[in-house]
């Protein structure tokens, strides 16, 4: 399995190991080329394929079999072949299908972002900014559910749910007992415990982190603050739970810790911890350690500039290219006027480039 496959996504070629999915290959390229994913979560086995936002067009199957795939495929679960050519943002078909999926996802979503705790870090919000329309063609009553408390720390608001199944996989794979799943089918399917049982074990708080929308929220944080007013800070503590990595993000305002979450990467997934653990955190760290003295603070979290969470510690920022520099043979302009190395208007005989400071009116009045 050490073979490297060449795959071209939107005319950018990368080499990835065999068995990589198209989505992971696209994430290696990064930027707009990576398809959005609402249900796929690389740390959860079996996730993906459900939301259909990551559909891409495979215009060339592989080097051996160059036939294109007849349908759009879910990039999160389709593995790459050598010489595969994939179209994501360059395919109008994909863009159209994705707009369709976003519309479908939003028809039963309450769009109550102003009062939703997830607003600001919501994947559905990002997705609908990018692919949604400002109006809706849906003229019927939206599907609604009552809010349900899953234990004393988590609230489930099914009305917002997009049925990505991430929390089901999390509860299934992280905790010892399978406690919740999907009841009913079709558009009345719902995430539920059977029957309204408490979710009560050490790692169940992670379902809040994996939820792409505001369906599962932290009751210790609900309505306390908006995420964009708080500042994410990396911190750690020695957790007594052997499966907990103890590395978290604190969401602080002033000296107050409002919320504790696992650390997330630029795709909204939890990060691998420095001690090699997967990065899930236990309920004690998440819900009970809400004082600054509980934690060793490492410093401000470097965030990707994709949401409204802003604190000036961005990663992946690109400065505008210094074209002036190239055009003017390595010389830096000092004034806009200085683009022409001499002032044609005032006194052409004065070479402004000789000045080692901004030009001033006195320079022309010599």
């Amino acid at each position, binding site marked *: 399995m050490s073979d490297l496959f060449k795959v071209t996504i939107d005319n950018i070629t990368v080499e990835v190991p065999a068995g990589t999915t198209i989505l992971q290959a696209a994430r290696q390229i990064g930027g707009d080329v990576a398809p959005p994913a609402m249900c796929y979560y690389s740390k959860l086995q079996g996730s993906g*394929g*459900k939301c259909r936002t990551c559909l891409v067009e495979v215009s060339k199957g592989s080097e051996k079999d160059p036939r294109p795939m007849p349908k759009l495929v879910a990039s999160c679960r389709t593995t790459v072949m050598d010489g595969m050519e994939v179209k994501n943002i360059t395919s109008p078909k994909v863009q159209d299908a994705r707009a369709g999926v976003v519309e*479908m996802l939003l028809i039963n979503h309450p769009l109550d972002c102003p009062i939703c705790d997830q607003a600001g870090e919501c994947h559905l919000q990002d997705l609908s900014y990018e692919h949604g329309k400002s109006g809706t063609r849906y003229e*019927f009553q939206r599907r609604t559910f009552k809010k349900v408390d899953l234990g004393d720390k988590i609230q489930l608001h099914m009305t917002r749910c997009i049925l990505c199944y991430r929390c089901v996989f999390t509860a299934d794979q992280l905790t010892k007992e399978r406690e919740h799943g999907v009841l009913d089918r079709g*558009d009345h399917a719902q995430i539920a415990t059977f029957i309204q049982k408490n979710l009560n074990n050490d790692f169940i708080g992670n379902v809040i982190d994996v939820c792409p929308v505001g369906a599962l929220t932290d009751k210790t944080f609900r309505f306390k603050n908006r995420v964009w007013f708080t500042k994410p800070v990396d911190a750690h503590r020695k957790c007594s739970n052997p499966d907990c990595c103890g590395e978290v993000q604190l969401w602080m305002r002033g000296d107050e810790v409002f919320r504790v979450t696992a650390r997330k990467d630029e795709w909204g997934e939890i990060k691998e911890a420095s001690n090699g653990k997967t990065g899930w955190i236990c309920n004690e760290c998440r819900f009970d350690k809400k004082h600054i003295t509980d934690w060793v603070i490492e410093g401000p979290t470097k965030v990707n500039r994709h949401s409204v969470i802003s604190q000036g510690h961005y990663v992946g920022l690109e400065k505008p290219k210094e074209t002036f520099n190239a055009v003017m043979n390595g010389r830096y302009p000092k004034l806009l006027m200085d683009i022409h190395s001499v002032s044609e208007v005032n006194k052409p005989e004065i070479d402004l480039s000789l000045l080692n400071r901004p030009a001033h009116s006195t320079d022309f009045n010599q």
Partner: protein
Amino acid sequence: MNKKLLLEKAHVEGIRHYDVYRREGGYRSVEKALKTMGPEAIVEEVKKSGLRGRGGAGFPAGMKWSFIAKPEGVPRHLVCNADESEPGTFKDRYLMEFIPHLLIEGLIVSSFALGSNDTYIYIRGEYAWIVDILEQAIEEAKANGWLGKNILGTGFDCNIHVQRGAGAYICGEETALIESLEGKRGNPRLKPPFPAVKGLWERPTVVNNVETLAAVVPIINMGGEEYAKIGVGRSTGTKLISACGNINKPGVYEIDMTISVEEFIYSDEYCGGIANGKKLKACIPGGSSVPILPANLLLKTAKGETRYMNYESLSDGGFATGSMMGSGGFIVLDEDQCVVKNTLTLARFYRHESCGQCSPCREGTGWMEKILQNIEYGKGKLSDIDLLWDIQRRIEGNTICPLGDAAAWPVAAAIRHFRDEFEWHVKNPEEAQKRNFGLAHYADPIHVPA
């Protein structure tokens, strides 16, 4: 002319029981296959026969069998898909109810060909009484040495288990069926990996329809090449058609795929014409999920050729002017039927049966039903028709399993062929409430035999 292979003996007194079935020549194919042929030879014979899957997609059965992976030390499984839930399709029920040993016989031969020691029949939960019939047949077969350990002294072991479904249409999709058989929620899996590589309990699995497996019996008995001579082109053998709707003689008919659609509807041997002397308006020729066709396109293709009851001819013209053979649920609508209401009924069905796993199908089917409900009950707008078209276009092909397509096609075809009926509903809401059969001018120009 009409040759029966599957239902030939179906009405012999007591054929449900082993003694009569054996006396009528039953289980000959097992003797022939296990004693004189090897597994490869059987697969080869089925390939030669050109048998196509009878469940709806029409994929060549022999090809499907040859795809099965054969890793060392991993058991393989054959699963019989008896979860026949498509509205308008009831051929498998008939076959299992009247001649259950034919299916058991086909299953033994197929299990031998595929090397499956544990074979499952996944049967629709509503067919409660058929479970008893099948289990009795299995007991009888076991008692007479056709099942169990060391069948006919060949060293081949085979057991057949009957598993009841719990009333979900989606479990007729092969991967959802496998999930359900494993005891999980019946959600379709993503393909690849295909069941032939990783199916039931991650083992190589073949899922076949009841009729496909029953057809293996005549193929072994008469030889694949002989079987391929029946029928026409790539539509070989005989096909069970379950005819229903506004016809004089609804029921299950075995046809050899050379007769024309016109003959099938009007001849006394089959449907016996439209009931009450009415005219033919439209027909869904292959079970509820295939596109509906108006009378003129049903009897003749767009090129003016006669349309025949076989895979190629029914799909002639693609979806623009053709339809599909599907699972053989032949639903006939007379001039008094309303296409909008019919489409609403189908949309309601698919909304109810969507598993809710992937977004376009989960949300789209419900949306389509609500719009159709508005149009049907006089609250529709003209723009709703275009909206419906747009929704179905965005569901089709973008879902995990074919249920999304199956929900989109009937709506698409109804709008494509009967758009003015939808418009009539929108423009005359009050009249549409009073006499709910839309426009009758589609009814066929062909003379109805007296």
